[in-house]
């Protein structure tokens, strides 16, 4: 909930005048306090580097043995000592992108409705409900997914897509409908990332200056034209940041995906087929990994995931920050 809110624009409140007071540096207490808070602040970058170091150290034996072929190969045989993460990388990317396609329009719709159309008395409770989606633990989504979503998928949605819409002939919706599938994972991910995208978009839309809206209305725009031509374009890069933030969440999501995706090391074009993601292979196979190399290969999946999410998140934060800063400059 709070975590979904991006870096807020900094309010222009001046602290006490720096360096101009004679109090500065005189008391020992001041120095201790300053050192202590600085140490805690420095702890964050240190922790980040330490985490990256530990994860790469854990992954090292596998990375060293397979090199780049770890990313490109799709052989995964614990007995033969062959490990390649291509199916997992494919599964991670496809399930997350599909989740975005399902989730982003809906989340944006909710955000626009909440910031522009919702009656005042509905705004608060609806935002609360949407934010609440982010508070549900992943494992509970997984549990619900196994016993509620998968049966619906198996009995209703999949037959509808394949037979009623006649998409069963295309490679994307072919094959038997077991339920456990890429589509199932993407659907639960879509529900899970919706609150993140929607919260960021809502914040960004609300931050669009009044003058921007008033100018559009003064030009004779209808309310809808105002939103389309003046409000959304203004907030565009912030909304994009929110969407990419959602993507980052989806990429790293573990439990619900592990419980629904079917866990199979195969690249299949069909969304009905089971798959695997980088996070779910770690969760699913760690307990049964018997030799050092297998464990290390799982950790290498974690390292790949770490790098991908770091890049995705850095891009997202940068986009959101840019919007937050724009009105000032």
């Amino acid at each position: 909930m709070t975590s979904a809110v991006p870096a807020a624009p900094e309010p222009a409140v001046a602290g006490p005048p720096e360096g101009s007071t004679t109090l500065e540096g005189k008391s020992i207490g001041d120095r201790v306090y300053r050192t202590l808070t600085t140490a805690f602040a420095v702890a964050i970058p240190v922790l980040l580097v330490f985490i990256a170091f530990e994860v790469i150290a854990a992954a090292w034996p596998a990375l060293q043995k397979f090199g780049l072929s770890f990313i490109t190969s799709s052989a995964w045989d614990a007995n033969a000592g062959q490990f390649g993460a291509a199916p997992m990388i494919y599964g991670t990317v496809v399930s997350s992108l599909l989740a975005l396609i399902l989730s982003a329009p809906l989340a944006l719709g909710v955000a626009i409705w909440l910031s522009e159309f919702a009656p005042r008395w509905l705004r608060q409770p609806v935002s609360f409900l949407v934010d609440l989606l982010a508070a549900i633990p992943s494992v509970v989504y997984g549990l619900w997914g196994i016993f509620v979503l998968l049966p619906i998928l198996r009995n209703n949605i999949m037959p509808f897509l394949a037979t009623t819409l006649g998409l069963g002939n295309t490679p994307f919706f072919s094959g038997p409908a077991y339920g456990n599938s890429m589509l199932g994972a993407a659907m639960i991910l879509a529900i899970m990332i919706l609150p993140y995208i929607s919260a960021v978009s809502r914040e960004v839309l609300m931050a669009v200056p009044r003058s921007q809206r008033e100018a559009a209305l003064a030009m004779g725009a209808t309310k809808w034209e105002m939103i389309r031509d003046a409000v959304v374009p203004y907030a565009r890069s912030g909304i994009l940041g929110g969407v990419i933030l959602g993507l980052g969440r989806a990429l790293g999501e573990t439990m619900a995906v592990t419980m629904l995706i079917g866990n199979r090391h195969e690249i299949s074009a069909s969304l009905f087929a089971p798959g695997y993601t980088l996070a779910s292979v770690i969760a699913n196979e760690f307990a049964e990994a018997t030799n050092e190399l297998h464990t290390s290969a799982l950790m290498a999946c974690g390292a790949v995931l770490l790098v991908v999410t770091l890049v995705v998140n850095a891009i997202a934060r940068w986009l959101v920050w840019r919007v937050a800063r724009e009105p000032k400059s």
Partner: protein
Amino acid sequence: MSGVLGLAAVLATLPLIFLLVHLMREGASSIDLAFFSRMPKPVGETGGGMAHAIVGTLILVGVAGAIGLPVGMGAGLYLAEQRGARLATSVRFLSDVLNGMPSIVMGIFAWHFLVRPVGHFSALAGGLALGAMMIPLVTRATEEMVRTVPTALREAALALGYPRWRTSVVIVLRTALPGIVTAALVAIARIAGETAPLLFTAFGNQYWSTRLNEPIAALPLQIYEYAKAPYDEWHRLAWAGALVLIALVLIISLLARFVTRSKHGGVGD
């Protein structure tokens, strides 16, 4: 057009409502005193509870809080007070990056750091993974709360001859406290339901254990274990566990809102 967008809002909230209703229907009937006070029964026997997992989750959250709260609050104070400093800008950015790190990666980190060298799983490692997740949440929230303290208050204290550190600790921190408590509770609610970082750190335990250097049970782990298993009786317990977990998370979240509202008049989300 507003109708279509309104429909989007309805669609977005439907899964939540379905999920909560289903959870109540499946879980509520299994919740009784035994669930909170008994240990799990072996496969095939009915009854039993999750006392060990509930206690385990509380212990894990305690360890995480002991790690995440001081560091997060300290760093948050620094960020609020040294707003323009170059270090503050990068720490702020990096704490956001840390926040976006997948939870399972935190598990790998704690496993390689605390489990592998020792040779066995431990509650401490689980607590560390959760604590590391808490740090960025508490940091950013503390920073925001400290910033809402009026500058005049700080200046008044300084003008009275208070040293800076006492101004910060006694005046600023005290004023921002309800907001910080809220932030801490929200962070706790977030990590209490985490499963992935615990899979190979706390690991889970079928027996009663409260020791920090031994594997410990946790509610989310127990739900995962039971949900995967092919036994109806275990599924029933998984739903009950999920209901208890959600109740725990929601109660903490509501408590957070209550703390904020009673003293701070609408700060927070």
